[in-house]
């Protein structure tokens, strides 16, 4: 009996140890990034991994200026909001029609949209550039918004489809009996019930767009339209001496996402697993 218990306790200790190691490996680089962003140049080279002696908060102000972060932040916000504003309505409306309305070719259309999920975003990046050029939209934020929204559609429709399909089929009927038009039935009845799905795709698409680099680097050609990730890459190229400031830049990109993540982490995680596990 005693032997059983101590073996069990040892196993639990091992489990905790493993998880602590995982946590350290996952978080230490981030902690290091923040610490080093607050050091002076000299301290940075002298002592890499200690706590900064006199936190130099002005590194952040300097990085903000040199990296034109205000501009980049604005661009990122515009692109992300624009993408969400297009992708969310388009995806939920299309998913609704393809899931809960009855018409010819419904199934076919659904598979058609799912084609988008089989093409990883970015493989078609160069051809997309040609299309954007044809449309005369080269080097605009609008082109980014449209392209990123289009790429988000397949997955968003897939998720919304999963949520819509779980709602009972009598809902529209009841709504129509009560005098709703089909559109109002969608807007007032079905959509609010599927709002967890909306929250999920909002978070996933938002995060994806905020961090997006490949297509942004291809579609954006002038410096004043750069989003934060693109701005960072160019900043790194220029700021060869001021490494703490570079780390400050990194921290400024990362911290908003981190805070958002900590607040909504359940949503983040459930959204990603919904697509993977529930299928």
């Amino acid at each position: 009996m005693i032997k059983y218990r101590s073996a069990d306790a040892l196993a639990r200790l091992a489990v905790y140890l493993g998880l602590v190691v995982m946590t350290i490996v996952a978080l230490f680089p981030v902690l290091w990034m923040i610490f080093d962003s607050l050091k002076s140049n000299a301290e940075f080279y002298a002592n890499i991994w200690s706590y900064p002696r006199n936190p130099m908060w002005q590194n952040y102000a300097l990085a903000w200026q040199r990296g034109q972060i205000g501009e980049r932040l604005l661009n990122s916000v515009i692109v992300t909001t624009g993408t969400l504003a297009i992708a969310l309505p388009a995806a939920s409306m299309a998913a609704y029609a393809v899931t809960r309305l009855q018409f010819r070719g419904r199934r076919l259309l659904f598979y058609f949209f799912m084609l988008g999920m089989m093409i990883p975003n970015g493989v078609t990046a160069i051809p997309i550039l040609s299309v954007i050029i044809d449309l005369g939209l080269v080097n605009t934020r609008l082109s980014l918004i449209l392209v990123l929204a289009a790429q988000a559609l397949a997955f968003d429709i897939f998720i919304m489809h999963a949520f819509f399909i779980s709602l009972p089929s009598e809902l529209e009927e009841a709504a129509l009996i009560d005098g709703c038009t089909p559109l109002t039935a969608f807007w007032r009845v079905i959509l609010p019930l599927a709002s967890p799905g909306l929250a999920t795709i909002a978070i996933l698409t938002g995060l994806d767009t905020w961090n997006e680099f490949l297509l942004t680097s291809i579609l954006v050609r002038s410096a004043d339209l750069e989003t934060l990730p693109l701005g960072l890459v160019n900043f790194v190229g220029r700021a060869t001496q001021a490494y703490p400031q570079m780390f400050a830049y990194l921290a400024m990109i990362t911290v908003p996402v981190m805070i958002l993540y900590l607040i909504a982490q359940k949503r983040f995680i459930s959204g990603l697993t919904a697509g993977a596990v529930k299928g």
Partner: protein
Amino acid sequence: MERFRRGNIRLRQPHSALSRRFRKTAMTKTHAPERHESTDDSLLSRLRIPHRVQVAGFAFVMIAPALLLFVLLTIYPVGRGLWISFHRWDGVSDPTWVGGANYKFVVNDEVFWNALKNTVLFAIVVTVVKNLLGLLFALLLNSKIRGQTFFRTAGFMPVTFSFVVIGVLWSWIYNPTFGLLNAVLESLGLSAWIHGWLSDPRLALWSVMCVDIWKWTGLHIVIFLAGLQGINKEYQEAATVDGASRWQGLTRVTLPLLSHVTAVSVFLSILGAFVSSYDVVYVMTEGGPFHSTEVVMTWIVTTAFRFSKVGKANAMSMILFVVAGVLGFLQYRIMSVRED
């Protein structure tokens, strides 16, 4: 008798047998419509447009925005890319038809094949490690311990960071003089292990792979955890009652029940590696040193922008598209299989 199919809504008229209950409700409400043909008093029904067409029309309106965007910016570019791949084009002047010349060029391009080899190697190594680690930590997290949420939150956090940020951060960790990794090795007395992690052509790709693993393992931990939590505990208890050891319980009961989740997780990482390798490679090494970290995507972008060989870049994109498409199709089939 109207047939109800789960999830399929038929907008029906209130005359059929099944809606008698609803009709009664409708009659008793003061604002119920008086006409019995349709509960929808709109213009459309007054114009006597058949119901089927009404529904189809509504559906069309709902789908149109997504469809337009999708066709224009996801489907059409494939065709456009194919067309361009048969031309020689620098992106500015008029394209010239060259037939299959680009493809012949690509097939003979050593850098391309090297990049493809790197991409495949990257995808495989990264997938295996991420999934093994993910499963391991998910199993740890799933046992009776406290602070599950804390550990899960911590482990998943790297997933939320931009690959650009991670690339820059890890470039610094790998820095031979000031980087964290070499400093740690030195302080542990393992100076012999110090290397130029990103400057040594033999090591560079592996160093980059570690970064991808660091970022994405959290996702697989979470996926496997969700899968584990979805398993009915009775199966595992039955195994224990039958005298199975812990290891047997794991391999004979738990793992087979996870097969769907595992398949999804594996394909997710394989497919993702094809494109996400661009971000991390570009930021950390730009394909160097000496193309040792070149992946297909970086080579495509370099060909298109630095060499202005847009036709050739499109040819490579088409090849990548076919390879990725096949994998993606398999992934979709696997993800769509309902658990039985």
